[in-house]
């Protein structure tokens, strides 16, 4: 039986299983096969919708302890029962859906700022969430947002969007800025480059730039 490993997560390598393919012996065999790959890393077992029993958890935990060089960090599951069981046994367990709930919570507490003027050189606007600007952002002005930035005018200043996030977008009717920072990644543009209906977005770790026409 073969399982999928997800290693893009910088925190730990995740072994993906679910109720269709969960089998104790197969998992152990698979880990043994991939031992070289997992060595030195932290390891998470994701069981999605499979309902774990107490014996299985204890069995797996005692097995992971015997593995040399692999640090077992706990389970990941969609089911609340699994989490409660793990907590009872003192094994770390994260609820996948809880992460989504957390993101949603954060989105609700974030503010959305409306700026009804042109930002002039030296002005600085910050927001934990999105910012909508009904005017221009002139050269020398700064906008910092935890979320997205929308400019209903000419964007010529510096925008830093999606601070601490993995996804965000910046849109403006006209764009003529030398530099934009999206999700901590800087994108620079040539002098005298200008666009209409400009959009720069980060999605799935990729930066996508979209515009209708260049003005010059």
């Amino acid at each position, binding site marked *: 039986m073969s399982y999928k490993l997800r290693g893009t997560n910088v925190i730990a390598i995740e072994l993906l299983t679910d109720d269709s393919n969960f089998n104790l012996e197969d998992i152990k065999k698979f880990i043994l096969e991939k031992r070289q790959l997992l060595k030195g890393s932290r390891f998470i077992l994701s069981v999605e919708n499979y309902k774990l029993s107490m014996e299985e958890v204890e069995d797996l935990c005692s097995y992971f302890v015997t593995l040399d060089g692999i640090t077992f960090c706990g389970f990941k599951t969609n089911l609340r029962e699994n989490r409660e069981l793990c907590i009872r046994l003192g094994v770390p367990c994260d609820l996948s859906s809880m992460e989504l709930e957390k993101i949603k919570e954060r989105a609700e507490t974030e503010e959305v700022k409306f700026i009804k*003027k*042109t*930002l*002039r*050189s*030296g*002005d600085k606007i910050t927001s934990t969430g999105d910012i909508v600007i009904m005017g*221009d952002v*002139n*050269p*020398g002005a700064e906008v910092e947002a935890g979320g997205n930035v929308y400019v209903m005018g*000419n964007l*010529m200043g510096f925008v830093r969007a999606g601070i601490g996030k993995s996804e965000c977008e910046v849109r403006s009717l006209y764009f003529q800025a030398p530099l934009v920072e999206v999700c901590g990644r800087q994108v620079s543009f040539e002098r005298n480059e200008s666009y209409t209906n400009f959009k720069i977005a980060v999605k799935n770790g990729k930066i996508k730039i979209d515009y209708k026409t260049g003005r010059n």
Partner: protein
Amino acid sequence: MADKVICVTSGKGGVGKSTVTANVATALAMKGYKVVAIDADIGLRNLDLVLGLENRIVYDIVHVIEGVVPPEKALVRDKRTKNLYLLPAAQTKDKSAVKPEDLVNIVEDLRDKFDFIFIDSPAGIEEGFKTAVTPADTIIVVANPEMASIRDADRVVGLCDVMQKPEPKLVINRIDPKKVARGDMLDVDDVLQVLSLDLLGVVPEDKNMVSYINRGEPAVLFEDSIAGRELRNIADRLLGKEIPIPKLTYSEGFLEKLKRLFGSE
């Protein structure tokens, strides 16, 4: 009558604040209005030179603030243009010698006695700038058609907004129609696109301006000066007259056409 106390500022230095102040004040005085120009650039005074009054200064603004003389006694009267007076800045002190409330007091003293009070602001956005802007009813921002000057002017406009002053009016100074036609210089629309202010005037580059300043004779005194003509228009617009901003025109001379034909610059 339009607003009385007019502050001329720019943020960046060397764009022509003192020149615009001196010329517009002179133009208004020539029309019979009683005008005083206050030099608020303490420590780096220039306005007296542009007006040609440097050899007649006895008392300055710091003497007035210290109570040595009343404001009327420190005023220097222009012999050439009646009705024009200058309150010079101190050259030996620095900007901290004048506080915003001091200038407000001086302006209030002079308000009833004059038709127009011009304040020539220092460059920068620090104390001196704030002092100069505080008593003003109207602010004129002078900008050259270049990005550095525009960005500084933009910053000044933002600060005026913070100080709850009315939106400044814009004077674009030293625009060269030849360079604009060649695409080497920003044109009026480019400047307005960033600053989006009411345009009070566009003063073209004038090669004689340096000699006017060195001689201490404002350009508005000369009928044939191209900059002087537009500076007189600015004075008229301040009086509320509707004068359209002239279009910048440039026609290539015969020699330039010939040069272009042979591909040399």
